[in-house]
């Protein structure tokens, strides 16, 4: 029973840390499926985390904070879109640029506005998202096995958490069951086909980039307004890149994305849990090894040793009409 409780605790924190990964990876999915590579997920998430926490701190409203987070993230996404789509610039370079601009700007503006060394004020009350208890969670807690699963694992999360998980089937549905999804997938594979079918490649890709911005915005808001109560300098700490790794690991498919993020989240939760606790049979695993594991797994996958990750065919290439 003790192991079971431990497991529940680990899984619970897995869910907690997976949420921003899922949101950011889905964000990347919209963008990359349309043919715009985005290594600026990290920067957008960071900027959104800051904007959300800052706006919430000033207005005392979590919803306004969320709105600000999404707004800022979409703005950065549009910069990336302008560079990649309109100016046909290098998408990798643009993504790198956005990461740095966000990293620097959040600290400079944070210091100028709040004078707390780049932090935003501690959020409390209405300024922060609260967790929701599912019905009867308290009553059912004592039921063996199912009780803890329901009341500890499934209940007691933020609305944003449920939203993130709901977005997985929703994204699948959008991608495979709507006109927008059909066109999105097409433009990432062969923009020429989309163009000659009378659809604007530019507008389609801009919409994809905006979707990406909205989702990284939510991911950022989750980080600074739900998971923690305020913005801290550099708080994304590579989550944008883990999400990118998860997206590749999931071969750009929505449901796979969720599982990849849960796996990477689980590794993260385990590494925190295992600090100083030797594993049975294996002995003590350095926490750094666990932290590096998602990246190593992604490299191994990319190398084609476990299946092959084939990116969208037109990915990373600006669309130029043939002449």
């Amino acid at each position, binding site marked *: 029973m003790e192991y079971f409780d431990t497991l529940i605790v680990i899984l619970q924190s897995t869910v907690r840390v997976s949420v921003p990964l899922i949101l950011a990876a889905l964000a990347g999915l919209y963008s990359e499926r349309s043919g715009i590579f985005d290594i600026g997920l990290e920067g957008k998430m960071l900027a959104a985390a800051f904007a959300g926490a800052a706006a919430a701190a000033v207005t005392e409203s979590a919803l306004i904070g969320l709105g600000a987070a999404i707004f800022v993230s979409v703005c950065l996404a549009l910069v990336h879109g302008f560079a990649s789509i309109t100016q046909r610039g290098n998408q990798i370079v643009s993504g790198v640029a956005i990461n740095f601009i966000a990293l620097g700007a959040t600290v400079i503006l944070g210091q100028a506005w709040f004078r707390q060394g780049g932090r935003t004020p501690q959020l409390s009350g209405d300024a922060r998202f609260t967790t929701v208890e599912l019905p009867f969670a308290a009553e059912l807690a004592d039921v063996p096995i199912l009780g803890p699963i329901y009341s500890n694992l499934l209940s007691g999360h933020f609305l944003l958490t449920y939203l993130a998980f709901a977005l997985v089937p929703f994204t699948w549905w959008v991608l495979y*069951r709507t*006109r*927008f999804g059909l066109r999105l*997938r097409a433009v990432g*594979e*062969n923009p020429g086909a989309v163009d*000659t079918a009378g*659809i*604007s490649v530019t507008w389609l890709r801009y919409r994809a980039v905006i979707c990406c911005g909205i989702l990284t915005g939510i991911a950022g808001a989750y980080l600074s307004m739900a998971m923690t109560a305020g913005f801290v300098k550099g708080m994304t700490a590579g989550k944008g890149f883990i999400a990118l790794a998860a997206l590749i690991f999931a071969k750009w498919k929505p449901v796979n994305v969720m599982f990849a993020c849960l796996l990477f989240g689980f590794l993260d939760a385990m590494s925190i849990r295992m600090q100083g606790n030797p594993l049975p049979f294996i002995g003590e695993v350095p926490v750094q090894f666990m932290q590096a594991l998602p990246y190593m797994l992604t490299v191994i996958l990319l190398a084609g040793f476990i299946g092959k990750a084939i990116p969208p065919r037109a990915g990373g290439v600006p669309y130029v009409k043939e002449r």
Partner: protein
Amino acid sequence: MNDLAIELKGIDKKFGLVHANKAIDLRVRKGTIHGIIGENGAGKSTLMSILYGFYQADEGDIFVGGRKIEIKDPNAAITAGIGMVHQHFMLVENFTVLENVMLGAEDSQILNAGIAKARQELKRLEHEYELEVDPDAIIEELPVGLQQRVEILKALYRGAEILILDEPTGVLTPAEADHLFRILEQLKDQGKTILLITHKLREIMAVTDEVSVMRRGEMVATRTTAETSVEELAELMVGRRVLLHVEKGPASPGDVLLSVENLTVRDSRGVDMVKDVSFHVRAGEIVGIAGVAGNGQSELLQAVSGIRRAVRGKVWLDGAPVDVTGKDPSDLRHRGLAHVPEDRQHMGLVLKFDESENSILGYHDDPKYLNGLFLNIEAIRQDAAAKIEKYDIRPPNPRLKTANFSGGNQQKIVLAREMERDPKVLIIGQPTRGVDVGAIEFIHKRIIEMRDAGKAVLLVSVELDEIRSLSDRVLVMFDGRIVGERSPDTGEGELGLLMAGVEDGQEAAQ
């Protein structure tokens, strides 16, 4: 004039300094197959792209069905009832046929309803025009002919009344091309108007009702097909009577320098493009390989020159076996094989390099261009200047970026590099593609000189005239095989039949 499907008045288009279309007028009657013919680069594709809204004309008016319209994007063209089958198919390769047909014409935000409707409509079109395709097949798994059918279905699904086909037979086997022409006839019978862009005279004569000829961006003539001849069209196309006769004496073949045995080559998609091919080339002769583009000539050249790996077979160069796993073109170079590649701009040259840098491409490990590990810039530039002089490359500046040379001069840079090495074997792909008339004569003369100097020359060209006027022996390639050997004096008709895969029994059996 209501019986006009399309009328173009004064269409003019410039791309920077290139005047692609010069005040083009065109009238296409409803319910006809109208051919547009011209050499590569004559401006046919640009004109059609303007009609399809892919580019906007700088000047001029477009009338469809007697009504003047603005075609500012493909959507406007589709609305006006114009459909287009592109030379390079505009299909999403990992989508199904159905998804490709629906793309851009989905009816509603949610796909479900549209899918059922599309499936039904597709079935109707298939029956009506004999265009059977499995709607659930994945495009990349279909043969090219069927992929083209999907392109046609896409246009018809959008209600096209006018169908533009841009070089549709370039990628088709003769059987597929025949089938395509039957489909076109049928579409015509149903009242559709068809614009057929091609540079192949035979196709024009076979299926069109009327034909317009373009030359260097201008529309030079329109004829009723029944009242014209291949000769007249050819003359209109080229602008002067085709006198491709090159002065050359009889060949005096010597030892076999290049020999190919049972060579099989696969392309990147895993399709066998060269199938069990055997032939040889002797010193002092030019062997030409004729064939419709895409019948394995490119892969053959690449395999023989070591660029592409061969699956099976043997190649001997000057009596010594060659490693056919295609690892080392530079090794072959050292052993006396020079290669003028088909794709000059991507393979034969680095356009961003200056002229002198390109003049050593592939020979950059020659000690005469090096000081140990370092480049001997002085020697390289002197060497380049000498070649510029000898081959009359203009402008005569070895430090000018290669992209700034004209097509003909770019080709001369490649030829100078390969020919001046004094190779034993010279293989040349498309020696005069995209080359101006003046340079063509120069290049042809050089090739003959190489032969007379005792080199073994293997020549691949899609221009049958070029093959016939230069070669001492002609091999015809079809569907990855050599289907016959003929003398260059053989009639165009007979060679044409061989190239189309129509075997004539006795000789084709080899």
